[in-house]
């Protein structure tokens, strides 16, 4: 029994040795150590303000209680605006909010059964429940509020003259004041982690190579996987510290609500950190110098900022950009963290994104360990 466990024990001992060595080196590298704190701090303050653009084809849910001709015409008019796509139908208000929490839809349209009466009375015809966390998204839907009812009027369903009142009643969930920081701050966690995690790890292994440490390590019994894990684990803690800084300060300075469960936030962050670190490891097996590692990191960072949904809503992007976004760990993490932090979603609501992060990490580690051979040729 003891004999069979010994190789594992030895392996763990070596991983531990590398881990503690890495932490020690990190603590002695003052500028890098400072960066761990300063990067999230400065970026948080810089990104407090956001960029706005037009958004189209937002996925929305429909709850039609009237089943009337008027409702169908209204839906056709809404679809014609191209702002929203009705992707699912729900039957109760609970189902509507659930779809919203899961992030499946950005809003839900609730059409009451007295829609005909409302048309006559010149009251708002229906209600939008909107996920307000992304102000760009909610603005697009809020713009529908006074949508003219030209088709309805032409068809003369009622005697009412063209309405000057609002067509819809609007209810904003999660971010009723429509403050962009609410959405930026959780997204920023994803961006900062992408930046620092990939950079630290990619530089870490390349640095060993540049300083000649690697030539010594490969003549020892250390196995590639042990080296990878030993070097990754310390940065996991660094990443968790950074996330705590961003969310904590975001909560204090920008009043970002933390609606979900803290333990789930940490778990999700952990998954994402592992995926980012793996990506960094992959870079380090390709890059020969620290400068190359840096360039490759920036190369990955830019799409992570632009396409992950951090800066522009996913729905507003062309298909090709959406495909690229799907491949980036940051996209999935930003979806998860916004869901948990702003919409009080749980990890079970967001499992596809979580699964993707896990798969990415596992595949990445395998490829990295395979690429990093204990040979010089």
């Amino acid at each position, binding site marked *: 029994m003891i004999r069979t466990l010994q190789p594992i024990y030895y392996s763990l001992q070596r991983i531990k040795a590398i881990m503690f060595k890495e932490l020690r080196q990190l603590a002695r590298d003052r500028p890098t150590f400072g960066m761990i704190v300063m990067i999230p701090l400065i970026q948080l303050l810089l990104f407090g303000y956001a960029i706005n653009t037009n958004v189209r084809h937002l996925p929305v849910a429909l709850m039609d209680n009237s089943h009337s001709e008027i409702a169908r015409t209204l839906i056709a008019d809404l679809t014609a605006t191209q702002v929203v796509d009705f992707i699912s139908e729900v039957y109760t208000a609970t189902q509507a909010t659930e779809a919203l929490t899961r992030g499946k839809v950005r809003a839900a349209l609730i059409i009451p059964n007295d829609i005909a009466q409302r048309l006559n009375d010149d009251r708002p015809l229906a209600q939008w429940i909107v996920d307000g966390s992304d102000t760009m998204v909610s603005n697009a839907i809020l713009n529908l509020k006074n949508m003219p009812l030209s088709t309805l009027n032409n068809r003369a369903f009622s005697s009412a003259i063209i309405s000057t009142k609002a067509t819809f009643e609007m209810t904003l969930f999660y971010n009723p004041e429509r403050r962009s920081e609410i959405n930026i701050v959780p997204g920023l966690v994803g961006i900062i982690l992408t930046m620092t995690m990939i950079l630290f790890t990619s530089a870490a292994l390349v640095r060993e190579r540049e300083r000649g440490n690697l030539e010594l390590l490969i*003549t020892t019994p250390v196995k590639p996987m042990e080296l990878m894990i030993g070097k990754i684990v310390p940065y996991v803690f660094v990443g968790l510290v950074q996330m705590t800084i961003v969310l904590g300060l975001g909560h204090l300075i920008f009043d970002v609500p933390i609606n979900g469960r803290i333990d789930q936030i940490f778990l999700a962050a952990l998954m994402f950190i592992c995926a980012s670190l793996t990506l960094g490891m992959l870079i380090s097996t390709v890059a020969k110098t620290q400068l190359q590692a840096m360039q490759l990191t920036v190369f990955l960072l830019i799409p992570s900022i632009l396409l992950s949904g951090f800066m522009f809503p996913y729905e507003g992007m062309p298909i090709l950009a959406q495909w690229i976004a799907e491949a980036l760990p940051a996209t999935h993490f930003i979806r998860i963290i916004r869901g948990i932090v702003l919409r009080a979603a749980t990890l079970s609501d967001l499992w596809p994104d979580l699964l993707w992060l896990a798969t990415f990490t596992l595949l990445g580690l395998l490829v990295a360990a395979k690429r990093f051979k204990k*040979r010089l040729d």
Partner: protein
Amino acid sequence: MENAIAIATEGLTHKFGEFIAVDHLNLSIPEKTIYGFLGPNGSGKSTSMRLITGLLTPTEGTIRVLGMDIPAQSEALRLHIGYMTQKFSLYEDLSVIENLRFIAQIYNLDKHRSKQRIAEQLHAYGLDIYSAHLAGNLSGGQRQRLALACATIHKPELLILDEPTSAVDPENRRDFWEKLFDLCDSGTTILVSTHYMDEAERCHGIAILENGIKRADGSPEQLMKDLGAQVVEIDGENLRQLKQQLIAHSHIISAAQQGTHLRVLIDEKITQPQVWLQQEFPEIMHGRELTLVRPSLEDVFVHCTGEGRKK
């Protein structure tokens, strides 16, 4: 020597693309000896060492180290060898004792043994008082001692040192070699590369490498004895001019100025080199003192490499 063979290679060849770094190298290095690779930069010393440790895969040929087939069994070999790279390869931002601890953990020494070995190594290599210093702040000699202490912490049977003293002053070099002899006495086989003649002369056996080819091997004494040339030292003025005239002659293998005299290697077929020189070059030898001296390892080196070899 009746010792078992620690390292044996046959037809060992390594090519980097078209470039042949190691060319059909045959080695047979007995256990518990210090064996040296002597050669200029780029002669294939480092590549040979990397092949022997399994860090590079040979293009051709076989390698057996400590009874293991390399590179197939190189993972198993790692527990039995210590390797010191040409460049200082420990962590400069870790202290002396932290580096030792790290390496001890990497070799899976248990707590008690690791503590004991670290104390022993600190003492043996005179690093006690520096144990808390960062490795990056040590002098060249101290660094080499630390590197050697780390490379031997797990008491390897085979120690491979790639130009260990290239950045060390003569006094520290002497101390370093004392340590190597201690290690050898306690049963360690040592393979060391160098381009210093005095270091090569300390080895039990050496191989002279050039362009990846083994030009000569054997014990330094034997090599000097078998030189196949005689050495005459000539003093006087205008040595540079003299050298130009001498090396044009086909029986003169080489001539090199050393301080106030010229060291001339002459074909062994000439029976009385001094007399021969006087007869061949009566004018320029006039008034000069000619002394027949014992060949040095440098003479051997000059004789079997570079320009000297062609003649």
